[in-house]
């Protein structure tokens, strides 16, 4: 029993961590938290199920198309909900514009795909065992994203440009970095990661439009606790969240587990509004 709690906890934690990274990649490029993060995860699951189970495409094609769908939504987010707002004096409007877009996508899915949770296809023809693919797929996806991002940020020019934008937008712009296209690329990358999270966790979460607000909420917890823009913090906090949630699920049951997660989240944030890692005070006067 303990083993299956740990397995499912780590697996779901990996999905939360990936959504957290989705938030972070968008945030680093634009200083904007987007409500579409969880929607991307939902879309990964729905598109995967649509292409592979319903249309009957081969696994690889369905996988790539689902990721591409996420990337497209990432770019749309940037163009429709982020870019116009960044020009404004009142930049808090992004909360509303990204929320509106997230809801539009979610409702569109609900109408076209249906409001029932549908099964996600089994990707590999393996027998169900203890260490099942529904557990190890999210782990593999999470590891791949962490390694991939590290390589991107450290080894490639475009990755270093991302880091520069995240560190100091004005200085990066002064150096002649194309801020806008870098931001768009970041959002595409974030879309890809979000869709991957939903795709890899498809078997656990099912292809269900209602996953969007859940992932938006649970995926933000790793960001809030791990520190904004801090991917390693997000992974650690995501895994802890997953384990905590699954343990609470087992010990006190589903609803009270949700209440417990919510309570812990609020209490930690109230004590450490800047997250458990890193604390910066803003200059106000």
């Amino acid at each position: 029993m303990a083993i299956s709690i740990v397995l499912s906890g780590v697996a779901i934690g990996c999905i939360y961590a990936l959504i957290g990274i989705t938030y972070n990649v968008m945030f680093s490029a634009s200083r904007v938290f987007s409500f579409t993060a969880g929607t991307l995860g939902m879309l990964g699951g729905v598109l995967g199920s649509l292409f592979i189970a319903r249309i009957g495409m081969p696994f690889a094609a369905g996988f790539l198309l689902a990721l591409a769908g996420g990337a497209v939504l990432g770019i749309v987010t940037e163009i429709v909900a982020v870019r116009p707002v960044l020009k404004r004096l009142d930049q808090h409007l992004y909360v509303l514009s990204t929320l509106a877009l997230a809801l539009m996508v979610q409702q569109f899915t609900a109408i076209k795909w249906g409001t029932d949770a549908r099964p996600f296809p089994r990707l590999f023809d393996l027998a169900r065992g203890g260490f099942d693919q529904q557990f190890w797929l999210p782990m593999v996806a999470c590891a791949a994203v962490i390694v991939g991002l590290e390589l991107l940020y450290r080894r490639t020019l475009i990755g270093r440009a991302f880091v520069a934008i995240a560190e100091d937008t004005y200085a990066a712009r002064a150096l002649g970095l194309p801020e806008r296209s870098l931001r768009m690329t970041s959002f595409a990358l974030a879309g890809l990661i979000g869709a991957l999270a939903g795709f890899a966790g498809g078997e656990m979460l099912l292809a269900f439009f209602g996953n969007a607000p859940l992932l938006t909420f649970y995926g933000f917890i790793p960001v809030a606790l791990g520190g904004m823009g801090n991917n390693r913090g997000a992974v650690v906090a995501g895994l802890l969240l997953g384990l905590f949630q699954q343990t609470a699920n087992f010990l006190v049951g589903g609803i009270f587990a949700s209440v417990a997660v919510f309570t812990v989240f609020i209490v930690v944030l109230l004590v450490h509004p800047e997250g458990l890692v890193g604390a910066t005070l803003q200059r106000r006067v």
Partner: protein
Amino acid sequence: MEMPAAQLHTSRANVLGSMSAIGTALPFLLLLVLGAVFPFFGGGYWSLIATRACVYWVLVSGLNLVVGFAGQIAIGWVALLTLGAYTTSVLVAGNATPPLPPYLALAIAGAVGAISGLIVGLPALRLRTFYFAITTLGFATIVTQVALAWQSVTGGGVGVAGPIFPEPFSSPTGFYYFCFGLAAICTWMTANVAASRFGRALTAIRDAEVAAEACGIGKPVLLTTVFLFSGAVAAVAGGLFAALQSYITPDAFTLDLSVLFFIAILIGGRSSILGPLLGTILLTVLPEFAAPLVAWSTFLYAALLLAIVLAIPGGIAELLDFKNRRPIESDRAIIPRPELLARLFDAPGHVGALTLEAVSLSFGGVHAIDSLDLEIRPGQVHGLIGPNGSGKTTTLNVISGYYAQQRGAVRLDGTTLPVFARERRAHMRIARTFQTPRIVGSASVLQNVMIGGTIDGKGTFVEALLSLPRHRRDEAKLRDTAMLALATVGLERLAAVRADRLQHSELRFIEIARALMLRPAYLLLDEPAAGLSAEEIKRLGAFLLAIAEAGTGVLVVEHHPDLIFDICHQITVLNLGRKLAAGTPAEIRSHREVVNAYLGG
């Protein structure tokens, strides 16, 4: 004599005020009459829609104070509707207790809602926008999950029957009048709050939080009060909603509904009661005209939200604001009337000196101020000069409580001022202005100045809610004082104009008028001459001197040497956080190091 002129302006403003009050009330009266006769014309089905609009408005009216006025992005407010609906239904059905009468159940739901509103809202005191939005979203998700899972009480997915209110409210028409009455009361109450010092303080927290603190507005207490009220009416709306639906399941409370409430406010416009009211009616009625699109309604609401955020962030209220599209006279000069100060500062109390004793503050390794001693006396103008980064503004921020010094003390008349307590400064009659004016752009000039006198109001929030006499006296007095303060700085003609339409120099004088509302013992000004013309600087100088002569101690942080040497009784020169020189203007002018460093030989 100038006095009658100012009185004339004040009385004219009162006449204008009462005329515009009728103008503001007119649309509400019209809606009241329409609503009262509606059942005689609309059919049974339309009465149902109208009832729903009333129920929604009961919730939205309260949420409007949170979102439209205080600017808190509370997107999960449907949770309170859910709580109210289940509390009322379960108590009436007697699933957990002996069955209670519907009115009592509704009242209990209101109390539960108030407490829950507080719990949902409290994180707003510590967290930033997105974090707060997410916590309300999380709360909404969890309430629905609990409703679904707690089967013995809520009936789980099967649901529970809604309450039925006894005669005369049991028939559809009767129930409509019940909801309509509550909606009308909510409109009246929130309009009262909006026009009160609490409403103005909320917009100040939203648009100029730092200035709100300097005016002594305590965000925690104010927001707590508003969350209690907003939660209570939302839960009452929930009880009505359950009765209207006659049967409730967790499915009835989707996030869509939350979005509807939220969008109604944004369509309506911030700091408005009428706008969100029209928005609520519009959003409730709209789907009825587009029957084939019902499935798409949430999608369309979301699209509407996006369009409004991107195209008209001001909402309906701004579209309807014809008054502020009239041009204001372009050729205007600010001519302060210092002679009115005596009337503004009636019965000034006597206070001792404001002193800094060995105050030090460093940011990381940088010594912003380094064991600084300073004495500011009442009735004198004290200048603080020095190059950029010498610690002038930091000193001002320590005195006004925005920064906490690491060593040393700030004392007023010998009493140590508490560290970091910004809102307490106003109560000690220490007022300040800011380097960039911090103004509520969407409020009128008069309202902006009235914000400065917030702490002098005596009536409580409940008295404002019900517009009781003591509150009305507060408001009349605040309005008169604010008109007088505006006349003193010479801007009374612009009293009714939206503040964001004014010129920069005028905003500086509005900030001074707002600070004068405190009848300050000490007035701290952060670069008041920046952006002013030479002529305006001269008038400002004379005005500041007059303020000092009226008994106030004035501290000016400035770069303009002319202004400083013309008006200051004492000057302190800072360099790298240390005092380089101090003395009268004549002494400073002949101080060798100062002359070498800044004034040029």
